[in-house]
């Protein structure tokens, strides 16, 4: 039985939480497969949102509203999944580095990644290398994302990568970095896997790193 997921996708793109949750519930009640609703109704919609945003046709508050709409639908879908059968694109641990308290950029990246189907573990701000290592060791994420706004806190990114090496974890996780003073050159110098200049390209980079679409 095929369920028309277009109304759901449209509602997500428009950021209409009420309509979207209604459509998601309708799809579930109609016997729709939760993973299909997630992939084709929600993530596909967020992909379009991402493209429109990259093209300058949508603004950040609208993109965030779409992400919020998607999350409301995901909350509806969760009980319908059997334990352990929700497949996400991967887990990303995110944090702003030690001595740095800025997080708007990191939060936007986290929301965009979530919208794209990744699972996010947000460690907040002022995260020392040891804390990153501990979480990577415990949660085995596919990606570690670090953010810094101050050029004086950027060295903590290198310290974290070195700490991962010391703990024997460096080759178990991909490292992405970003933030106003960060550059691709710096990423190369400290041995990070990728640098992304903004939230949109961070999603593309994450997909590319994990070779997923």
């Amino acid at each position, binding site marked *: 039985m095929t369920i028309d997921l277009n109304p759901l996708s449209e509602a997500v793109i428009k950021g209409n939480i009420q309509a979207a949750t209604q459509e998601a519930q309708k799809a579930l009640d109609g016997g729709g497969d939760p993973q299909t609703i997630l992939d084709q109704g929600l993530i596909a919609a967020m992909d379009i949102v991402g493209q429109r*945003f990259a093209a*300058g046709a949508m*603004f*950040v*508050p609208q993109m965030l509203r779409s992400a919020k709409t998607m999350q409301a639908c995901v909350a509806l879908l969760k009980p319908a999944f059997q334990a352990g059968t929700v497949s996400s694109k991967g887990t990303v641990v995110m944090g702003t580095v030690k001595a740095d*308290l*800025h997080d*708007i*950029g990191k939060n*936007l990246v986290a929301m965009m990644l979530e919208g794209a189907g990744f699972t996010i573990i947000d460690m907040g701000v002022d995260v020392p290398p040891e804390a990153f290592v501990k979480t990577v060791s415990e949660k085995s994420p596919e990606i570690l994302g670090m953010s810094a706004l*101050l*050029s*004086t806190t950027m*060295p903590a990114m290198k310290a974290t990568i070195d700490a991962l090496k010391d703990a024997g974890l460096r080759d178990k996780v991909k490292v992405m970095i970003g933030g*106003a*003073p960060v550059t691709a050159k710096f990423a190369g110098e400290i041995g990070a896997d990728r640098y992304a200049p*903004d*939230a949109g390209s961070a999603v593309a980079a994450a997909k590319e790193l994990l070779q997923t679409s």
Partner: protein
Amino acid sequence: MDNLPIPTFQPRLKVLDHRQALAIHTAALEILEKTGIKMENDRARKLLVDAGAKPFDTDWLRIPAFLVEAALRSAPRQILLYDQNGDKAMALRDDHFFFGTGSDTTFTLDLESGQRRGCVLNDTGRFARLVDALPHFSFAMSMSNPQDIPKIEFIYVYTFAEMLRNTNKPIVFIADRLEDMRHIHELACMVAGGDAALRQKPFILNYSEAISPLRFPAHVVDRLMFCAEKEIPICLPSGSNAGGGAPVTLAGALALGIAENLAGLIIHQLTRRGAPFLFGPNVSVLDMKSTVVSYGCPEWSLTQAALADMRDEIYGLPIWSFGGATDAKVVDAQAGAEAMFSIVTAMLSRCNLIHDVGYLEYGSTSSLEMVTLADELIAMARHFLKGIPVNRETLALEALDRVKSAGTRGIFLTDDHTFEHFEEALFLPELLDRSRYDAWMAEGGQDLYRRSNAKARSLLETHRLEPEMDAGLNDEIEALLQRI
């Protein structure tokens, strides 16, 4: 008997009336009294609670309005900044305005290649020296976050020392840790001739920031209290940017930024009554496509014009402001347009200390060319601000009689009156080009960016400080840098 001269009205911009100002101010008070602030500094929290603030949750305080009023009353209405020779340089008060550069940019436009590259310490020196040379710049800031510092954790001490060596004008500096502040204070005392001399004739001002919304990190407040104790003038603008750390509607962003600023002022005045505090938040906007904090937007000009009006209506304290900056990545038409917009409005509103002149790329890149051309933009705006003096000489009726008598050959260009008055009456541009096309082509057909580049190079080559730093003092400074 001659009648009294007609005073010349000087154009002034007003963007807010008394009722708006009062509504924003009372909203700020309500934020302090009902919402509260997060005070992560133990010493300051105790100071506030002892004075009457009410603690709740972890680190949160509600601050009663009477503390605001007391602080506004004890803070000085005039902050005098001197230059490094001990002469009065900037009287920060009511309608006096002063322009200067901005703080740490990660990148700079290379003067020789035009490339955008990471900053080095030499850039800090060059920007300071250029400010020293340009007549419409009153103070220097680092315009760089140099990457080639031997001990990177002391970056702010090194940049401060580099500015000392390359300008005698006042310096607005930033610091991170209390340790940085102590070293910078020590350096400033070397120049001024001791702590007492520095208090008497401060040539420095610290720029620190609380974090919107409502957050006061411990180390930021340490710096605030240090400056109060040492009577180092300080500003504590939070970046209450519309749509980011503050509401997207400007009245709300202003109210929040002002509330945060008042909280800082209270701590400052409780620490040392009467210490100098430069008032005001940075209220720009978060760009809704790129999420950068915009340095070219009209909103920031509007909010600081509003702040200037609120200064005149309510606060009475001199204010921290910005101007002459852009979101453009290169020195192009956008850069010129945005820089001129904020220069003109800042001047028309009589903002007091106007920083960030010469910024490209929303503060990520600095440009010596931008600084150089902005000097002329400021001069142009200044000329407008002088208004139109109306008196017998300027009405020039006698000159008209002469030209009339000269018949068909009569023209003002050749008249004595023009010779006597043209330098005062007219704005005479240097960088802004008005030449005829062929003449312009003969000179190489250069745009403003290239012409500014040439002027910047020339100034950097020829300008000498008056005086250049004394060798003994330079050694003392170097000794401190080696020691830390």
